[in-house]
């Protein structure tokens, strides 16, 4: 049973198609991420859902009600903007209370709700501060609180973390997800950061050039990319052209072959190679890159460079450039993409 239903959404600016043929449905309380590269139309799609941008075609339903032509004020949608869009002339408290005041709620109720949501986003003590007196992370949480306090049916978040530094980003990610689950809020989260998408979402929609090219759970998008674009976008996939695939693995494919770097194992010459596996692939270590708990090797086999991730267990195990090794690739983990 779907709570939000979008069908056939399309938008053009002049001759330029920003998005088209967008269909999706969201379950109530679901956290969905719209993932795609910069300029693919994520923000425009989000703004269309909120009613801030008119769409040329299509239909949006929330809880069975057609809101395609409804004014933004009437949609019951909350949004956190990339720039936060906090009102600079209002304190934290006034920013958050703004929507409630417009609803003409009694003062005591406004005060209670504001206090609650301030506690929820951990901003106690900052009530009287103005936006320019806050850090980026605090502003972000004010924006979130301001959108939450009016109890929207859907929460839209447009790259809310992109302006923050890596550490705050991680902790806010968890906070947002936590709050969303506590409130059971149907949420659409926009990002171009695949790690963010993978860690937060119930479901991911991957967008490319104004179309949703794949949708599915984080595991599914990550392990089974449907297209070459998704494979490239999801990170460090090795992508082999059909000729490379046949040269390296004697596999006949029509599309590209996508192999995740952790699906390849490295065996040093001294290491016993499990005999029951397929024939080893001889290769040479070219370079390595330390990514914290993972070491990423660039290895060369038959003139083709592959990326291989190994767990970083012991410093002694590091393989020097020029080392001759054998590779073993798990056939199960290879995917043909188009």
């Amino acid at each position, binding site marked *: 049973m779907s709570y939000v239903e979008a069908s056939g959404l399309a938008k053009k600016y002049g001759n330029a198609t920003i998005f088209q043929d967008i269909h999706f449905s969201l379950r109530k309380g679901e956290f969905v991420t719209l993932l795609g590269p910069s300029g693919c139309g994520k923000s425009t799609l989000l703004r269309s859902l909120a009613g801030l941008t008119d769409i040329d075609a299509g239909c949006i339903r929330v809880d069975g009600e057609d809101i395609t032509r409804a004014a933004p*004020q009437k949609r019951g949608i909350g949004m956190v*903007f990339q720039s936060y*869009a906090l009102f600079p002339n209002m304190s934290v408290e006034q920013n958050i209370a*703004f929507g409630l005041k*417009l609803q003409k709620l009694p003062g005591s109720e406004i005060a209670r709700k504001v206090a609650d949501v301030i506690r929820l986003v951990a901003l106690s003590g900052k009530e009287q501060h103005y936006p320019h007196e806050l850090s980026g992370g605090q502003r972000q949480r004010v924006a979130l609180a*301001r959108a939450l306090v009016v109890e929207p049916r859907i929460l839209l978040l447009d790259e809310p973390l992109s302006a923050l530094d890596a550490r705050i980003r991680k902790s806010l990610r968890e906070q947002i997800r936590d709050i969303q689950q506590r409130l059971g809020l149907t949420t659409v989260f926009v990002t171009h950061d695949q790690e963010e998408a993978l860690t937060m979402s119930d479901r991911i929609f991957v967008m490319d050039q104004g179309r949703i090219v794949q949708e599915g759970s984080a595991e599914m998008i990550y392990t089974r990319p449907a297209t070459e674009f998704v494979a490239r976008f999801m990170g460090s996939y090795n992508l082999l052209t059909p000729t490379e695939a046949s040269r390296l693995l004697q596999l006949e494919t029509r599309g590209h072959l996508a192999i995740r770097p952790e699906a390849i194992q490295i065996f040093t010459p001294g290491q016993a190679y499990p005999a029951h596996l397929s024939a080893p692939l001889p290769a040479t270590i070219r370079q390595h890159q330390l990514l914290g708990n993972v070491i990423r090797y660039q290895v060369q086999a038959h003139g083709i460079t592959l990326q291989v991730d190994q767990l970083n267990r012991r410093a002694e195990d590091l393989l020097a450039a020029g080392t001759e090794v054998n590779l073993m690739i798990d056939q199960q983990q290879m995917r043909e993409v188009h």
Partner: protein
Amino acid sequence: MKTTSLPLAGKPAVPVRPRSRLRHWPAALLLLPFFAMLILFSLAPMVWVLVNSVHTEQGLSLANYNDILSSPFYRQAFDNSLRISVWSSVIGLVISLLGAASLRRVSGRLRRLVVSITNMTSNLTGVPLAFAFIILVGTNGALTLLLRQWGLIEDFRLYSSNGVILIYTYFQIPLGVLLLYPAFDSLDDDWQAAASLLGARLWQYWRYVGLPVLAPAILGTFILLFANAIGAYASAYALTQGNFNLITVRIASLVSGDIFLEPNMAAALSVLLMLMLLLVTAVNQWLLKKGARHAR
């Protein structure tokens, strides 16, 4: 870094003798003509006005001020000046606000055109402006004839208070647009989007967010428009040949008329005019300070 606490620092360095400030005296000479001109043609006349405003034949006294404040004729001049300045500034401000707000929402080409037009028409002030309006809305002006023919007006009295307000408003608009237009850049479009999602109608956005954010710029512009209007002389003088009673017209006639000159009276009027300007500026500063907390 603190090095003084290190035992190895050794002998204190020989203190550098502060070089005399006088070593730049040849350079200071170049400032001399600058200050001379400024003193001769700006500061000296100001001082003269201040000093002589409290001078009468009987010596030092406030008699001039007393005369002004008890004279209905001068009080009318103040009334007229104030009324015309306030009205033309308010109307000019409202028109410039609406114009500047819309200017940001039209295509770049149209916008550039309007900015050049405002720049161009900001040159049309004083005597030429008065003449242009006489041609347009004077007794036999083209627009007057048109409106009279359509039966919209009986007669427009250009040579009256309303006529002066009309002319003043005209020269306030370009100034207002040029001053306000950049201020609108400080408005983020997302604020309006955010406000509307929180349930605000367009007017509520302007009432609670847009205008408060613009308030300092609006106040500042108002002050400049007001000062511009209250000190203006040429257009009203040219329009009515000095028959419309304004402070500036009074001041000028007291020092340049052919009948009797009363420079000290003119000085006292001038001081009162300046005090009015100061007062308005002070109120503006106070208002700005009151709302300054969120100002970045």
